């Protein structure tokens, strides 16, 4: 295994483009090292992107949107005084991943590019409308988070492409987001079901909604039917029931060591309702 620590994304991209065999980018490493240690994936080329300038920066742009460097850790996101005020769902989703120790290393970028359908931060990012900047040999492009994963362990990134920034939209007024996941313990598990919800209200009425489900299909899902179930409502019981039903209906899960089809389908509906209530309260300005 060759180890590289390039000084720019252009250099990182070039290294990846010219590498043979298996290439992995190293951000926090909390997935890459596990795969290495367990002989699942031993890359021929490992490209550490943490020495590139600015990769640990969290920046609020003039329009209220956020740019996050690709090596920003979960701990740094949680500690940021303002990011969590705008996007508590995204920050909490990231914070749910692994232990305090893992939080010291793990990144949104790594969580996304690992391609796991159960990645906690991804449904929250999808609900929030997050995009990533991708640098390749031909320059950069901006891609919606939901378009990155294409299946378990697979992404739409081409050879030589590397995620070079995370772009979180401006929260704007009367908006709120939330992420909930189901795990059997209180910590340290992979999501059996994850639900991200982002809402915008006008008065008591939901005007915009994005609902995303994790661990219930080969990729994280952005579920339009869930959004439609709540848009135009005050998130009353009927709307919540419709949301839960739409979430369950969108599931296409598998039976595995972490959960059954029936369980995931049922609990996706339960969590969608619970997450929506939190997002709604946050959109109303309540501190939840």
């Amino acid at each position, binding site marked *: 295994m060759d180890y590289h620590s390039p000084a720019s994304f252009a250099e990182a991209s070039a290294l990846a483009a010219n590498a043979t065999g298996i290439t992995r980018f190293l951000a926090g490493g909390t997935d890459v090292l*596990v795969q290495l240690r367990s002989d699942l994936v031993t890359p021929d080329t490992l490209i550490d992107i943490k020495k590139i300038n600015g990769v640990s920066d969290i920046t609020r742009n003039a329009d209220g949107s956020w740019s996050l460097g690709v090596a920003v850790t979960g701990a740094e996101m949680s500690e940021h005084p303002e990011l969590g005020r705008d996007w508590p769902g995204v920050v909490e989703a990231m914070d749910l991943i692994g*232990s305090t120790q*893992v939080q010291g*290393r793990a990144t949104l970028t790594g969580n996304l590019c690992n391609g796991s359908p159960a990645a906690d931060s991804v449904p929250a990012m999808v609900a929030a409308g997050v995009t990533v900047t991708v640098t390749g040999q031909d320059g950069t492009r901006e891609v919606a988070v939901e378009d990155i994963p294409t299946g378990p362990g697979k992404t739409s990134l081409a050879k030589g492409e590397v995620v070079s920034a995370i772009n979180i939209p401006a929260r704007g007024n009367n908006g709120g987001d939330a992420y909930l996941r189901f795990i059997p313990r209180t*910590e340290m598990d992979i999501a059996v079901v994850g639900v991200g919800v982002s809402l915008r209200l006008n008065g008591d009425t939901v005007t915009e909604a994005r609902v995303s489900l994790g661990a219930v299909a080969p990729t994280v899902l952005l579920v339009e039917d869930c959004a439609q179930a709540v848009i135009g409502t005050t998130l009353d019981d009927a709307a919540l029931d419709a949301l839960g039903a739409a979430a369950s209906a969108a599931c296409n899960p598998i039976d595995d060591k972490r959960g059954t089809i029936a369980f995931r389908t049922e609990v996706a509906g339960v969590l969608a309702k619970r997450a929506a209530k939190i997002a709604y309260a946050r959109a109303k300005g309540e501190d939840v």
Partner: protein
Amino acid sequence: MSKLHVSTTVNGDPVEYLCDPRETLLDCLRDKLNLTGAKEGCGTGDCGACSVTVDGRLVCSCLMLGVEAEGKEIETVEGIADGDVLHPLQKKMIEYAALQCGICTPGILVAAKSLLEKNPNPTEEETRYWLAGNLCRCTGYDKIIRAVMDTAAEMREAS
């Protein structure tokens, strides 16, 4: 596959080692620097027995490559005591019998010290969640949590 040269600082001491790029920081601490206080309980970041701090940040040394330590400040369990004076956490762990076999103890100590530096007055719930990545199979955590919280109280009083 040639080895890489790494210069880093461990518990305040400048050190150097040569490592294979596949070797973790934990491998390097244990096998190259003979600092065997950090333990490998899982190798997958699930047990916390290998906890160290890197530039003040709590991490699993099994989830970091040795080569990534270049230029960093590493602190391990071996650096917690000040010479022969134990850190209050170390004293309380013994006093509370917060260890039975002791294999998780180095990781618990590094993690708990990191907690108290960040939050000198943690609630029981905060303490439990902070330490959720440090598995202990002997104690049921009861005495560990009590030891950490009592240390926090004592350190608050002393300061």
